[in-house]
């Protein structure tokens, strides 16, 4: 009796494993949308995905947060079910990425601008409020800063904010910011650092004479510990700021908006990062957010067109849409209707050569 039950048990489990093998092999194709990309767009993208999944007959899209650069890299790896359909990005696609895409057979990419986001420099709510200029930011965070003589570059000597600008507090410079895979990093470098960098006349002159050198000076962030690369997880940065009142963090306005009871944004060039200041463009460090779609995948991957429609619908990205509740700054009505029309026609992206 006992003997038989043992044998049966073993036999039954063997049968189960075989059945699993059988059913697993008989899978059908991918029937959901696959989204990767920016952690700044991730909160918006997941909300749209969830609304879309609940409201339609299609499955809920799968969203992974990989950073804009990482997302575009995956996106450009090829056409097919193994590759993402959509990548979120907190900056515009670069020529080099379009080229990689083209090499891998992705020729038609549809760019969808979804709204604006400011990049804020924030610290803990209990810490003193500061007001910075972009020049301050450049001098505090660049790897090399202009010396006394014209054309001279010295290794960044500034240790405290007061070293940079006597009006600032004498606390150690400690900024938690995103890694190079992040679009926020690219945008920050281009808008804030380069903006401050340009204020030095001889560097500005370099822009037309030696563009690469200009970029290297303006875009290189110091690596001596004052700038801490904190990974893609913006929540984590917020938690760290709460713990350390001397530290600043760089992230998107939407995170500031969602965490208003923990951190506050610093004024940049005299403008406070608020919804309205970013919407009307007076806050200097703001950038549009995008997502990119493979045209070849639309109408092939179930639900992709519907997902686009949901994302570009008035109830999502409109003035009163649910994305603005999450901190997305909507585009103007004209812009919205133009982008929505382009998306409907799937107008492929053409990059103006830089």
């Amino acid at each position, binding site marked *: 009796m006992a003997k038989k039950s043992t044998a049966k048990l073993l036999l039954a489990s063997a049968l189960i494993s075989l059945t699993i093998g059988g059913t697993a092999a008989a*899978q059908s194709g991918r029937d959901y949308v696959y989204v990767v990309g920016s952690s700044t767009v991730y909160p918006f993208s997941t909300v749209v995905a*969830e609304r879309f999944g609940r409201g339609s007959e299609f*499955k*809920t899209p799968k969203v*992974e947060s990989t950073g804009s650069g990482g997302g575009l890299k995956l996106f450009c790896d090829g056409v097919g079910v193994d590759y993402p359909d959509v990548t979120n990005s907190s900056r515009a696609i670069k020529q080099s990425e379009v080229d990689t895409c083209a090499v891998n057979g992705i020729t038609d990419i549809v760019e969808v601008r979804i709204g604006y986001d400011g990049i804020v420099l924030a610290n803990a709510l209990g810490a003193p409020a500061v007001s910075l200029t972009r020049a301050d930011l450049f001098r505090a965070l660049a790897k090399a800063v202009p010396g006394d003589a014209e054309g001279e570059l010295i290794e960044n000597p500034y240790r405290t904010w007061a070293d940079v600008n006597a009006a600032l507090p004498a606390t150690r410079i400690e900024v938690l910011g995103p890694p190079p895979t992040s679009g926020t990093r690219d945008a920050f470098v281009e808008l804030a650092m380069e903006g401050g960098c340009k204020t030095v006349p001889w560097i500005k002159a370099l822009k037309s004479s030696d563009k690469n050198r200009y970029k290297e000076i303006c875009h290189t962030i110091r690596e001596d510990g004052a700038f801490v690369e904190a990974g893609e997880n913006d929540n984590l940065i*917020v938690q760290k700021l709460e713990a350390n009142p001397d530290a600043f963090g760089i992230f998107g306005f939407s995170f500031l908006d*969602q965490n208003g*009871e923990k951190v506050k944004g610093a004024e940049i060039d005299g403008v406070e990062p608020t919804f309205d200041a970013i919407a009307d463009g007076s806050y200097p460090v703001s950038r549009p957010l995008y997502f990119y779609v493979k045209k070849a995948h639309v109408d092939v991957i179930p639900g992709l067109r519907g997902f686009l429609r949901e994302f570009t619908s008035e*109830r999502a990205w409109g003035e009163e849409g649910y994305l603005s*509740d999450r901190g997305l700054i909507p585009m103007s009505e004209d812009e919205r209707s133009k982008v929505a029309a382009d998306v409907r026609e799937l107008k492929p992206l053409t990059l103006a050569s830089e």
Partner: protein
Amino acid sequence: MRASRKNSREIVEAGLARRRRKEAAFRASGMLATAVGVIFLGVFFATLVMQGASAFKQTFIKLDVEMSASVLAPDGKLDLAYADFDGLVRNALRKEFPDVSGRSERRELYRLVSIAAGYQLRDMVAADPSLLGSTSTIWVPASSNVDMLIKGNIDPEIDESLRPINDAQVAWVESLQENDRLETRFNTALFTNGDSREPELAGIRGALMGSFYMLIVTVALAFPIGVAAAIYLEEFAPRSRWSDLIEVNINNLAAVPSIVFGLLGLAVFINWMALPRSAPLVGGLVLSLLTLPVIIIASRAAIQSVPPSIREAALGLGASKMQVVFHHVMPLALPGMLTGTIIGMSRALGESAPLLMIGMVAFIVDVPGGFTDPATALPVQVYLWADSPERAFAERTSAAIIVLLGFLLIMNLAAVIIRKRMERKW
């Protein structure tokens, strides 16, 4: 000199008090050490229950919703997927608070109710289209911030800027409470929904199903293979360097960090065999490799505990080696093997590190329906929720942990019962 020399009894007696003190101190420190573990356990469960118990309740708001055809089907045609059910909820809220005006103030008002309300209305209309045009009184879930306020997790006394719900909203909630339009009920969504970005919609069903599929794969692979390996090693393997090597190897595998198994899964199952990421099938494969050593070690111990006299008696009666093992040793060792398997399964259920490596940390809303659908597992869901910024996820994390620990407890109890009821003392 001689006179001052004490005899040995005096020496002993002089030291006695000191030695007794030492003995007492030693004993007390032993008691303290034991208490540390037990006290931690108490504190741990107490905090967990305190934080998590409220997540099993959810606040609901009573609304009189007019299923106005002009909102739902402005052009005369009702399209369920795109009809503005949220608009109905907004209208109902405006009717409840007629003196709220101004765009931003109204938006604050709308935020009292969860977005789930719209879906609830849609499902009602989908089930019974004749509701169109009628007015019905329904209970809809409140937004997570209202829920937190009601449960006391948000203190309305602190400064307005420090809390996610403003004074006007607090006043509205209070007025709803006065009119008996607010009620807390059992939170069924927690058990029937998949993951969500909205805390009040988020549930653990998806994660539970993911864990379930993974455990099926694990038990189906690890149990037969583990038992077979144990039988071979214990009863048939020739004593040689080779079997020593296998022995060391299995003991080591049982102590290899689980994350290394994750690396193995990533490299072999996903990169090399091109199995889908985030699939319970891959998770189950990794977990079965992880639990295999546990099961083998437990099964070997069970086989060893069968007295040799039984083998000898069977051999003496002319049974072959194989017959001895399968007819006599294995039935006697089976309770031990089953206990080991259940313990291994409970370890697999609580494991999360290797699953992080194979893409099971993703935002997945749909409840998985098979072995290759994208899924998460219960412990991974705990990890994901613990990282979420919304305050309401903190209590839901604790609730998910309570459910997870409940399952583990049941499995361990089952193991104990099997051991108690079927074990034989020799």
